[in-house]
């Protein structure tokens, strides 16, 4: 049988339609497409794809089941190693992980592993009514700090081994960045809620409204009888550029803008949490978060949305698929542009003018690429005298975060690096006995799947540590 050279296309909402709604962009494979796509898998003996997956999903095995139409079997195989398949199938950068290792990808397009994973997880969530068996308790208690991807993964893996796990979440809803950061149109919140429910069914307790480092400290968790703690508290304070004008009204961090829209539902009609809607918006930065912010602004009714990024498309760190989606929707990429000042309205004759202090524009300078820097990317250099102004009503800074100080400041003996990230060894263990950490709290802003990988590693280490006790 001839090999089909390309992945089966993902059905998506029309760009002109989806630019005005918050429903999911990618609609998912049908069972027919999934089976056909699964037939492209060569079922290689050496399984290169598995080595590309941070949580080592048994990819050829689950795809073999999809090929046969045994979707529930496929789900069981995935769920032995992944606690959040419906999430990963949507937000993992498969093109640089499993799919980048696919043998088929040498000559053709790789197998659409992520799309198949998503299909299998969605099929299961829709059709399966059985609760997973609750594992026999092993008598050990573990506390998890943060209910984002690393915490949920760690919790799931430990719960499956019989540990009594409590997840502490600072916000009012579990899910961490999956809830406050990633927008509905890329990851519907009901999918996150479903994954959390699955963990609860395994016996995991989720305590919202508890800020570790404030409400309770790590030391108090040990006093309460937890024998090990995993810190997956995520990235922290948003970074700003320290250019003039960042305090004007209408300048948001991406975290604030996305939290208002995603967690607080400011995108809904008549929201209780306000957000600026409409007008012209500049998003500064080129990561996935910047794409999310830009596409959210567009859906909130912006007439024009710019991505302002100081390097070129080649260096832009966002996933290709997200960039393509953003372009299709009409996001205007202003590459090799670097902001130098944010401009605001000030009426000298009327200090009570309600427009005072609101953003009116962003002054940028054009850049060119010079020699590669420490990151291996070509360093952008200013072109003297090339300043220009983009007229905008809002600016969203999406240039990363620095770690949250709350846990570091209240946990004696917990070592952090120069950037404030928690230091861990190869087992995920911190400088404190029985305290493990992973995800953005360790690495700084990274991906959902790498956080999950870290949660998985820590769960394995915690199990080894506690089963010796």
């Amino acid at each position, binding site marked *: 049988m001839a090999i089909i050279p390309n992945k089966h296309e993902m059905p998506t909402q029309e760009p002109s339609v989806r630019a005005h709604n918050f429903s999911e962009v990618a609609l998912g494979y049908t069972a027919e497409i999934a089976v056909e796509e699964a037939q492209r898998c060569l079922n290689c003996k050496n399984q290169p794809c598995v080595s590309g997956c941070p949580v080592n999903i048994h990819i050829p095995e689950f795809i073999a089941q999809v090929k046969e139409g045994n979707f529930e079997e496929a789900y069981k195989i995935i769920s032995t190693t992944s606690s959040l398949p419906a999430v990963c199938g949507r937000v993992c950068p498969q093109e640089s992980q499993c799919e980048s290792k696919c043998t088929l990808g040498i000559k053709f397009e790789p197998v659409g592993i992520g799309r198949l994973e998503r299909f299998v997880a969605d099929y299961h969530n829709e059709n399966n009514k059985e609760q997973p068996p609750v594992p026999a308790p092993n008598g050990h208690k573990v506390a998890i700090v943060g209910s984002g991807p690393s915490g949920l993964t760690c919790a799931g893996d430990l719960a499956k081994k019989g540990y009594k796990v409590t997840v502490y979440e*600072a*916000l*009012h809803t579990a899910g961490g960045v999956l809830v*406050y950061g990633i927008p509905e149109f890329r990851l519907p919140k009901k999918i996150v809620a479903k994954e959390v429910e699955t963990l609860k069914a395994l016996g995991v307790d989720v305590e*919202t*409204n*508890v*800020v570790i480092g*404030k*409400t*309770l400290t790590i030391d108090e968790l040990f006093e309460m009888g937890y024998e090990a703690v995993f810190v997956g508290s*995520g990235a*922290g*304070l*948003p970074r*700003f550029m*320290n250019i003039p004008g*960042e*305090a004007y*009204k*209408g300048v*948001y*961090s991406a*975290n*604030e803008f996305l*939290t*208002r829209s995603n*967690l*607080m*539902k400011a995108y809904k009609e*008549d929201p*209780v*949490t*306000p957000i600026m809607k409409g007008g012209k918006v500049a998003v500064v930065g080129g990561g996935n978060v910047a794409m999310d912010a830009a596409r959210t602004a567009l859906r909130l009714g912006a007439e024009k949305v710019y991505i302002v990024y100081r390097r070129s498309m080649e260096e832009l760190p966002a996933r290709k698929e997200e960039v393509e989606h953003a372009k299709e929707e009409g996001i205007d990429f202003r590459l090799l542009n670097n902001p130098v000042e944010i401009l605001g309205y000030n009426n000298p004759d009327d200090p009570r003018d*309600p427009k*005072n*202090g609101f953003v009116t524009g962003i002054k940028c300078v054009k850049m060119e690429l010079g020699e590669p820097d420490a990151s291996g990317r070509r360093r952008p250099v200013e072109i003297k005298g090339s300043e220009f102004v983009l007229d905008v009503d809002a600016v969203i800074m999406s240039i990363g975060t620095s770690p*949250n*100080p*709350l846990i570091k400041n209240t946990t004696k003996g917990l070592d952090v690096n120069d950037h404030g990230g928690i230091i861990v060894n190869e087992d995920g263990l911190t400088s404190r006995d029985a305290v493990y950490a992973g995800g953005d709290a360790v690495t700084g802003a990274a991906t959902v799947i790498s956080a999950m990988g870290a949660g998985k590693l820590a769960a394995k280490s915690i199990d080894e540590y506690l089963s010796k006790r």
Partner: protein
Amino acid sequence: MYKIVSKKSLNATVTQMEIEAPLVANKAKPGQFIILRVDEEGERIPLTVAGTDPEKGTVKIIFQIVGGTTEKLNHKAEGECLQDFVGPLGVATHTEGIKKVCIVGGGVGCAIAMPVAQEFHRLGANVTSIIGFRSKDILILEDEFKACSDKLYVMTDDGSYGQHGNVTVPLKEMLENGETFDEIITIGPLIMMKFVVATAKPYNIPVTVSMNPIMIDGTGMCGGCRLTLNQDGKKVTKFACVDGPDFNGYEVDFDEAMSRNRMYMDFERHAYEEACNLFKKEA
């Protein structure tokens, strides 16, 4: 869910509630705040802790009805529950080494100033309190301040009670007469705190101000609560939720803070009217 154990109206627009939240009650110190949501679809709002009872496991909050959310909160009755209540957040007011303190509270800010004054009193410091209100009918917490202050000035803008004038009048008078303090701590409207700082400046007395910017998560994630400090000629961005809410009054850019606090003014007015209309319809 977090039960409202008691509810009391302090004046026409200011209400006091005790909320059952044992973990918060165990930890909260004067100067710290909590974030609450009234109901499932509610907004997150920060409120400063007005007192705790660790034995009962309750936290006291005092709030002014200023918008949709506080209007909804005020409609909750004793025995009903709040959806979410998280804290304590922020850094507690520093008290170390302060033997003589002047507490300056304005309006509903007095609710936050009160536990701070009480804490200094408990620690054995000499406490002078100045509390100011627009008029007699919105006066709150006079007895509480009397109980914890060595000296108390009650001011009203219209002279309907206590002394006529704003809070800087007695402060200025005291300072001019050679009175001195280890620290002045002021909590109230931004414009009032700005003027307290200006009054104290010629006398080089440290002034701590309690900032109340717009906030969402309150844990150092969103950056909405940022403010600018001028430190030795350099502008430094700080986050009220994790670095504050207390700051050195001489460093705070008040004009910027006032402007930022007005960001959603129209939205809030609209939300307030909506909430009021809703409750009128129900009534």
